[in-house]
C-alpha cells in the first residue's frame, strides 16, 4: 500500500564509495558530477529555512543531539576546532558557549585560590583574563555552500558571536588547510552529503594533529523493526509535506529522507573511519539509531 511503502526502487548497493561513475542521489542514479551539483542546489535552496525545517522535522530534538555531541567532545579552552559542513553554525556556536563556560569556571577557581591577594592585584588579574574569555579557543567553520555560510554569518552577527570564529569556503574532500592543524574535527549531518566519503575521512585524518579527535554526528540505521517502520512512515509521509508547506520545497526534503536510507549503517561507517587510519573508533546510538555519533583518534 502506498501508505507504508516508499518508491519501488530497492536500496541500491551503492554506498558512500564511488563504485564507478554511477552514484546515488537519494534513490536516483546519477554521475558523480551530477550528484555534487544536485546536492549543492539542494542546500542553496534550503539555506534560509534550514534551521526552521530542522526544528519542525525533529521537533527540536536536533538541538539535543548537537548538545550531546558537544558534551562528548568536552573541549577545554585552547582547543582548535574544525567544523566541516558547518553551514549555519550550530556546532560552532555551541563550542564557543561550552569553552566560555569552562573558562569562566576556571577563572572563578583561580580567583578562589587568590584569597590572600590585595584588591588591586585581584582586579588586575581579572582584567587580564577578561580579554581571554575563550582561552584562545578557536573554531573554523568550513562549508562548500556559499548560501549556507551566508546564513551562518548572519546568525553569528545576530546572536553576537564574533571572537574565535572563522568562516571558510571549502570542500570536505579537499580541505584548504595544512596537515596536523586541528585538535578536533567535527562533521554534523554533513558527511551524508559528501560524494566521496572515503576522501573526506582521509582529509579529516590529514588535518588533525596527532592525538586529535574525529567526531561525526549523522543519521544512521534503526535496527528495531517496529520503530524502523514508524520512522519510515514519518520520514516519507510527513517530512516532504513539511518541506513543501514550510519551505515550499518538496524535492529537497524528499532527497534528504532518501539520502538517509542510502547512507552506510553504523558498523560500515566505523570500518570506513578505521580505513582512513583512525584508532579507537567507536559509535554511540542516539534515539535507537536514528542518529549516531562516531568517534576516532589520530595517534
Amino acid at each position: 500500500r502506498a501508505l507504508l511503502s516508499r518508491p519501488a526502487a530497492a536500496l541500491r548497493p551503492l554506498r558512500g564509495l564511488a563504485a564507478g561513475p554511477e552514484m546515488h542521489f537519494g534513490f536516483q542514479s546519477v554521475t558523480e558530477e551530477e550528484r555534487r551539483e544536485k546536492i549543492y542546489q539542494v542546500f542553496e535552496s534550503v539555506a534560509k529555512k534550514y534551521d526552521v525545517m530542522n526544528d519542525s522535522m525533529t521537533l527540536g530534538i536536533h538541538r539535543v543531539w548537537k548538545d550531546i555531541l558537544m558534551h562528548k567532545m568536552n573541549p577545554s579552552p585552547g582547543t582548535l576546532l574544525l567544523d566541516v559542513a558547518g553551514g549555519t553554525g550550530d556546532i560552532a556556536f555551541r563550542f564557543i558557549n561550552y569553552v566560555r563556560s569552562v573558562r569562566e569556571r576556571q577563572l572563578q577557581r583561580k580567583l578562589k585560590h587568590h584569597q590572600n591577594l590585595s584588591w588591586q592585584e585581584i582586579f588586575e588579574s581579572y582584567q587580564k583574563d577578561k580579554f581571554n574569555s575563550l582561552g584562545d579557543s578557536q573554531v573554523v567553520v568550513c562549508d562548500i555552500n556559499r548560501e549556507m555560510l551566508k546564513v551562518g554569518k548572519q546568525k553569528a552577527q545576530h546572536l553576537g558571536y564574533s571572537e574565535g570564529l572563522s568562516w571558510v569556503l571549502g570542500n570536505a574532500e579537499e580541505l584548504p588547510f595544512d596537515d596536523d592543524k586541528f585538535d578536533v574535527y567535527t562533521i554534523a549531518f554533513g558527511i551524508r552529503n559528501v560524494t566521496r566519503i572515503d576522501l573526506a575521512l582521509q582529509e579529516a585524518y590529514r588535518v588533525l594533529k596527532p592525538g586529535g579527535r574525529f567526531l561525526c554526528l549523522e543519521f544512521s540505521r534503526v535496527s528495531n523493526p517496529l520503530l524502523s517502520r514508524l520512522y519510515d512512515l514519518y520520514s516519507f509521509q510527513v517530512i516532504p509535506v513539511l518541506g513543501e508547506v514550510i519551505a515550499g520545497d518538496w524535492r529537497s526534503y524528499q532527497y534528504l529522507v532518501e539520502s538517509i536510507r542510502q547512507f552506510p549503517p553504523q558498523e560500515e561507517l566505523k570500518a570506513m573511519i578505521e580505513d582512513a587510519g583512525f584508532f579507537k573508533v567507536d559509535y554511540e546510538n542516539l534515539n535507537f539509531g536514528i542518529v549516531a555519533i562516531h568517534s576516532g583518534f589520530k595517534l
Partner: protein
Amino acid sequence: EEEEEEEGWHRLYPGHIPTSSLQKALLAAGSAAMALYDPYRHDMVAVLGETTGCLALPNLRDKMKNHPEGYCILQERPHIRLSTLDMARLQGLPDGSLGREYVRFLEDNKVSPDTRMLPKFVDDEELAYVILRYREVHDLMHTLLGMPTNMLGEVVVKWFEAIQTGLPMCVLGAAFGPIRLSTRKLQVLATELVPWAIRSGLNASCVLNVYYEQRWEQPVESLREELGIFPPP
C-alpha cells in the same frame, strides 16, 4: 526505466509529484494553515487547490467536455502566457474590448500572466491542465468582474469562482478571506459585492468554457451578457 523506478510510480507531466492519500491530507491541512498564517504564500493556496480538488476538478472537466468551446480547449490546450500573447496587438484594440481591458488590468495592478504556479499534486494529466487553465483564466475573471487585485477584489472573485467551479479552495478562500478586512469593507462586501457575485456565479454559464484567446476583440460588456454575468455594482 531508471527514471521511473526512482519515483516508483509514473510522473504524469513535468513537475508532477506523486503523493499518497495520507500525504495529500497532510498537505491540504498544512497548506490551509500556512495560507492563513502567511497570505503571501500563494504557492500554499495553489497546493490547497490541488489537494482538495479531487471531486470538483473531474466535474469541471466534464462540463468542458460536454461544451463545444470547452471541448476545443481541452483538445488544443491553449496557455495564457506572455510568450503566447501578442501584447502589442491587444493594446491596440479598442477600449472596452476584452483584450484591451485585460491588458489595462494587468498594467493597473502590475501583475503578469506568467506568475501562475504549475500543478504538482494532481494525479491526472488532463485534470492538471484543467486546474492550470483555471489559474490562467483567473486574471480574466478579474477583468470580467471589474475587480482589482486588492484583498477585497480577490475575495469577491473567490466567491464567484467558488460558485462556478465548486473548488474547495475557492470556498475556503471566500469564507476566510474576509477575516483580514476592515469592518467598512466587510459591510460593502456583505451588502453589495458578495450577493452580486453569487447571483452572477449562479446565473453564468461555465467560465472555463470560453475560448478567451479567440475573443480578444469582443467587447467586455457583450461577453458579460453572453455568459450571464450581471454588471458590476
